[in-house]
């Protein structure tokens, strides 16, 4: 068996599962209104604003480490990752970039670094330390699970980097979109909602950049010479299977400009086809994606987080 594929096996860390579910007492189960939505269960009794922000902080640690490594070859400063932090496995500088491409990497890396600092500052002493992060084996396992190949190196070229970035950005949007309505009334008054919505918008700007660049590359070169759009869509399909659907695959526009016969337009925006509203994911759905594991309760680690997230929201409830 492919050892990397093991990352995508369903994992159950029994001890953490019991700590997360059992200690919280009653769990709430809700049927999904007869739709395709999975039944949502949650340890609802003790999840507050700081837990939501710490959940976001874990994701920002991951994004910041990925982008900083891609842009510079090294990661976050020790002062930005808390006390007794985890370690980062993998990560490398993308070389051979044009200055315009390097500027893009630098911008996104900076943005995510500042999100880490901002959330850590907001949480103060309640901020979780950086958990163990894997940004090499995770990509290989994900590529294998998505059918891209047995390995995938997002640091090999600018276009490979775009696929790596694609993995994160739309997930960030759906995670913040899902979290925004969870913030308490007191939290709204304290500015958390404005902060979360503001970060979500930035993740959407990033996602739009990545999706536009991938689409433009495929338009210019075709999907044979430019296979990266196809890779991204394979990732999207995998994310859909792990994260409750909530995906819009990229398309290459068909038609001509002269006759205004755009038969199929681009799909830069990831949103519902009914209302063009961006998807929202539950924390469970996000955990399943970043852990690289299919639906089920008690999933506590895997994928990009080999030892799981730090904080209260770290084990799937369904």
């Amino acid at each position, binding site marked *: 068996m492919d050892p990397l594929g093991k990352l995508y096996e369903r994992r159950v860390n029994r001890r953490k599962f019991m700590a997360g579910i059992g200690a919280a007492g009653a769990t709430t189960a*809700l049927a999904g*209104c007869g739709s395709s*939505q999975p039944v*949502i269960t949650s340890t*609802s009794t003790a999840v*507050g*604003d*700081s837990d939501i922000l710490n959940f976001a902080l874990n994701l920002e640690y991951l994004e910041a480490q990925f982008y*900083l490594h891609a*842009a*510079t070859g090294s990661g976050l*400063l020790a002062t930005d990752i808390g006390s007794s932090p985890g370690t980062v496995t993998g990560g490398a500088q993308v070389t051979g970039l044009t*200055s*315009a491409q390097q500027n*893009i990497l*630098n911008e996104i890396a*900076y*943005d995510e670094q*500042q999100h880490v600092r*901002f959330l850590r500052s*907001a949480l103060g002493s309640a901020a979780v330390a950086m958990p163990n992060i894997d940004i090499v084996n995770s990509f290989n396992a994900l590529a294998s699970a998505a059918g891209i190949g047995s390995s995938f190196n997002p640091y090999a070229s600018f276009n490979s980097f775009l696929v790596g970035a694609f993995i994160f950005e739309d997930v960030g949007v759906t995670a*913040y979109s*899902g979290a925004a*309505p*969870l913030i*308490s*009334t*007191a*939290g709204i008054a*304290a*500015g958390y*909602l*404005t*902060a979360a919505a*503001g*970060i*979500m*918008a930035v993740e959407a*700007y990033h*996602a*739009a950049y990545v999706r536009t660049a991938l*689409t433009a590359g495929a*338009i210019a070169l075709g999907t044979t010479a430019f296979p990266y759009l196809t890779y991204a869509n394979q990732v999207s399909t995998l994310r859909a299977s792990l994260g409750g659907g909530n995906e819009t695959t990229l398309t290459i526009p068909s038609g001509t*400009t002269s006759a*205004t016969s*755009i*038969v*199929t*337009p*681009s*799909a*830069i*925006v990831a949103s519902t*086809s009914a*209302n*063009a*509203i*961006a998807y*929202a994911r*539950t924390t469970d759905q996000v955990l399943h994606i970043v852990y690289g594991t299919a639906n089920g309760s008690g999933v506590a680690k895997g994928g990009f987080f080999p030892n799981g997230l730090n904080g209260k929201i770290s084990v799937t409830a369904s």
Partner: protein
Amino acid sequence: MATQETQTLDNIIASRRALLVGGGAALAALAMPGIAHAASSTTGFGDTDILNFALNLEYLEANFYYLAAFGTNISSANTLYPTGAMVQGITGTGTQGTVLVKASPKVPFVNLSVASYAVETAIEEGKHVAFLRSALGPAAVAQPQIDLMTSFNALASAAGIGSAFDPFASDANFLIGAYIFEDVGVTAYNGAAPLFTTGTTGKTYLAAAAGILAVEAYHAGLVRTTINALDPTGTLGYMTLTQQVSALRAKLALAAAPSPASVYDATPDDYGVTPGTITVSLGGGASVSRSQIVDADPTNVTAFSRSTTQVLNIVTGGGATTANTKATGVFFPNGLNGLIS
């Protein structure tokens, strides 16, 4: 009988109710540093008023993109409509208006990508109109009078771009025209998000507004990315145009900034696309240059939030600086429909 929209909203509610139960934990001890969120200028307004405010803006955006992509406004049938583009309703409360635009506004696109983006965005903004009208039901406001001709000339003049600007003239002009709207949409939805009521209905609207906010940011990112790609070094002048537009928006936002000034986001609250002339420090390394695809606060990198009055002042070109007086001008010559106007 659930419509698709209400079913979507029901699903959102169901999937969140569990966590909402525990969401009331107050964290007063946590202080959010560096956040100066725009103060509400809508005291006394309800969820319906906020959604109608958004609907006015979506009427504006959808008409712009429909006209650019298809040559017709959102309430007109057109055989060019691809799947997903539909005739939208524009009736409702308030005074229904028309759209002032030049003859044959369909952009003579030469770039397939840009043409496709226009079509995609038109479809999505049209759906936002339909969604908000469906959510509001009989409370939806009518489309107000909209000006997509002299408005751009006035804005161009105010921004120092020249006495006339035709956003329907070319691929590049279309992108600059789109640029004017999209970042404003982001700041408007961001500013509106905390204004919703905190009950189940308000949370449902908040979830939808957050989703639309993200889509506006996707659009803004798309437009800024494409401008950046067409003019990577700034030699064609497109980046300068975005900076001039952003500077004007920031000026108009500042003129309508809530008081005290301490709650106002920042000065400026808008950044155009730049060709890597900004330097930042990454990790422990030396300073490096970066691009400016994202329009956000330069320190915390959170998108800006504007009050309804600030947004009104931008879309009316400075018409909202007198309290309790209906703002008129530029894109909305007769003002918006609804209470927030």
